[in-house]
């Protein structure tokens, strides 16, 4: 166990629990703390059963011993509103914060697009954009690495059951943060994000549409190849990331139709939107952990 980096998960809800299950399979991450705010939370009880230390006192409950417990990476799976405070506190204790909320105070990280940048910059807080962003920004980037994309737009359709109270209460953060991610990481000059929630039963698997408008006529062959390559990269951590149709070319419009099925660790398989978030968060943590284990990065209090 000595060759693993210890981690804490803040937020024992569906996302935090799914992340815990994935992290337990990791070769470089060892989850040791689960932090919640409700003593009755089933997520805390589950984590305790799995041998993690738990607290219902929020981050404050972990702070006194987190250095002693060797926590060097924290995941925040709570909400955008409390994230800044959580991040400040764990950074002070020398732990890197991986932000799964749409707070976006740190640089955006979409693993196949710019994960190495974040690690090279030794950022102490990285933001995972949004679920829709993780599912679509790689494809905007796949087009923009071939040629100029003046406009990138994504439509994420998720099942009602997979849209939690946080997303619903702050749906504007989803649209704003995703749109910004399409520009900053996706490489489109202008980004636009749309989310649709569908209550059909059985729940639909997450669907994503990516529309890009290119500056010049699209190089169809090069874009198609780039899209297929990018999908393979994402499939390394989300095997159910599937091209349904496209790329369709219509003048300067390039449209790609995707479906994202989750692994079904804790969250149901249709909730690919949540799975891609936890998988991307863990992937990011693993790259940080590898850098730490190799002695190339020592996170320090800030």
């Amino acid at each position, binding site marked *: 166990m000595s060759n693993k980096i210890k981690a804490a998960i803040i937020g024992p809800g569906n996302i935090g629990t799914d992340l815990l299950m994935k992290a337990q399979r990791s070769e470089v991450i060892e989850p040791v703390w689960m932090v919640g705010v409700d003593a009755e939370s089933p997520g805390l009880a589950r984590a305790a059963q799995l041998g993690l230390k738990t607290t219902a006192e929020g981050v404050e409950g972990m702070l006194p011993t987190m250095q002693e417990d060797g926590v060097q990476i924290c995941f925040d799976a709570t909400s955008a509103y409390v994230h800044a405070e959580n991040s400040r506190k764990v950074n002070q204790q020398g732990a890197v914060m991986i932000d799964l909320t749409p707070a976006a105070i740190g640089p955006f990280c979409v693993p196949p697009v710019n994960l190495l940048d974040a690690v090279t910059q030794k950022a102490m807080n990285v933001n995972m954009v949004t679920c829709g962003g993780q599912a679509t920004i790689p494809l905007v980037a796949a087009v923009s690495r071939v040629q100029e994309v003046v406009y990138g737009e994504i439509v994420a359709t998720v099942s009602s059951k997979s849209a939690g109270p946080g997303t619903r209460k702050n*749906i504007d953060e989803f649209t704003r943060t995703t749109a910004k991610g399409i520009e900053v990481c996706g490489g489109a000059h202008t980004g636009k994000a749309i989310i649709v*929630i569908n*209550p059909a039963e059985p729940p639909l698997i997450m*669907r994503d549409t990516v529309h890009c408008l290119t500056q010049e006529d699209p190089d169809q062959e090069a874009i198609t190849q780039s899209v297929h390559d990018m999908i393979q990269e994402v499939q390394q951590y989300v095997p159910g990331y599937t091209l349904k149709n496209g790329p*369709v070319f219509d003048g300067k419009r390039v449209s790609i139709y995707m479906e994202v099925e989750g692994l079904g660790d804790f969250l149901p398989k249709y909730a690919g939107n949540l799975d891609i978030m936890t998988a991307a968060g863990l992937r990011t943590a693993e790259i940080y952990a590898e850098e730490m284990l190799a002695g190339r990065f020592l996170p320090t209090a800030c």
Partner: protein
Amino acid sequence: MDLQGKKITVHDMCLRDGMHPKRHQITVDEMVTVSKAMDEAGIPMIEVTHGDGLGGSSVNYGFPAASDEEYLTAVCKEMKNAKVSALLLPGIGTVDHLKMAVDCGISTIRIATHCTEADVSEQHLTMARTIDNLDTVGFLMMAHMIEAEELVVQLKMMEDFGANCVYITDSAGYMLPDDVTSRIALARAELKPETELGFHGHHNLAMGIANSVAAVAAGANRIDGSLAGLGAGAGNTPLEVFVAVCDRMGIETGIDTFKAMDIAEDLIVPMMDHMVRVDRDALTLGYAGVYSSFLLFAKRSAEKYNLSTRDILVELGRRRTVGGQEDMIEDLALDMAKAQGTL
């Protein structure tokens, strides 16, 4: 049924829902001309926005001829009595758009969600209620998909967030008068007495007028329509027809019936790119329970991939698609074309 003396507020949709059959290409000048004539005819409320609401400008729904800001600014400053409203669908537009529309001079904001997802409107309704004198409306779309009891739970949620008026919206034009009656009557009984209640119909089964009258009889006091029915699918409840029926029944709308008829005939019909009527495909929307603005998208995909529009629409209904899923249409058409071996 005796509705003599009942006062209602009629809300015109030509310059918002009517953007769908116009592929969002109504010009600023057309909006100004039409809205001034409506104001003159005594139409008390006029909606002006991209067909899919504030922020709807997109590849997915269509880029409009002008921005929401340009449309709203131009129309608001010309109104003498009519109030201007804007529509906003959380997930497409944000509170930033809402603030922009308020700055342009709107009096009403309508926050629309799918009928089971009212909680996504919290951010927008709670913000809207803090703006002085802003008429704040919650709008539940595709209301045929759930029963009255379930619908009322969602309406009450919007009421709690701060809506002073809530709407039952038949986006697919699927409802029959009894469906409207049961939903409106239960909502009226369960909502606070001071909360206004509205009905928004589509004419896909030619039930726009009958459904709107049923809504008034069951306790609704706001009714949406559009002159000459300019709206998605077979259009909205044709407003001039509804006003004429109200006149005959003694329902008071405050609208000059003949002037309304003249605007419909002289201004709106000439603006139409195609006759908005109950044709085979619009009828399919109502029959299969499909979101009305899917119509032109399905027609385009049918043409491009050599399919039947009706087949596409029926399949969209079977998959229980909801408003906003326009991106699903080309994807589905590609699947259908592959299945029939033409792609």
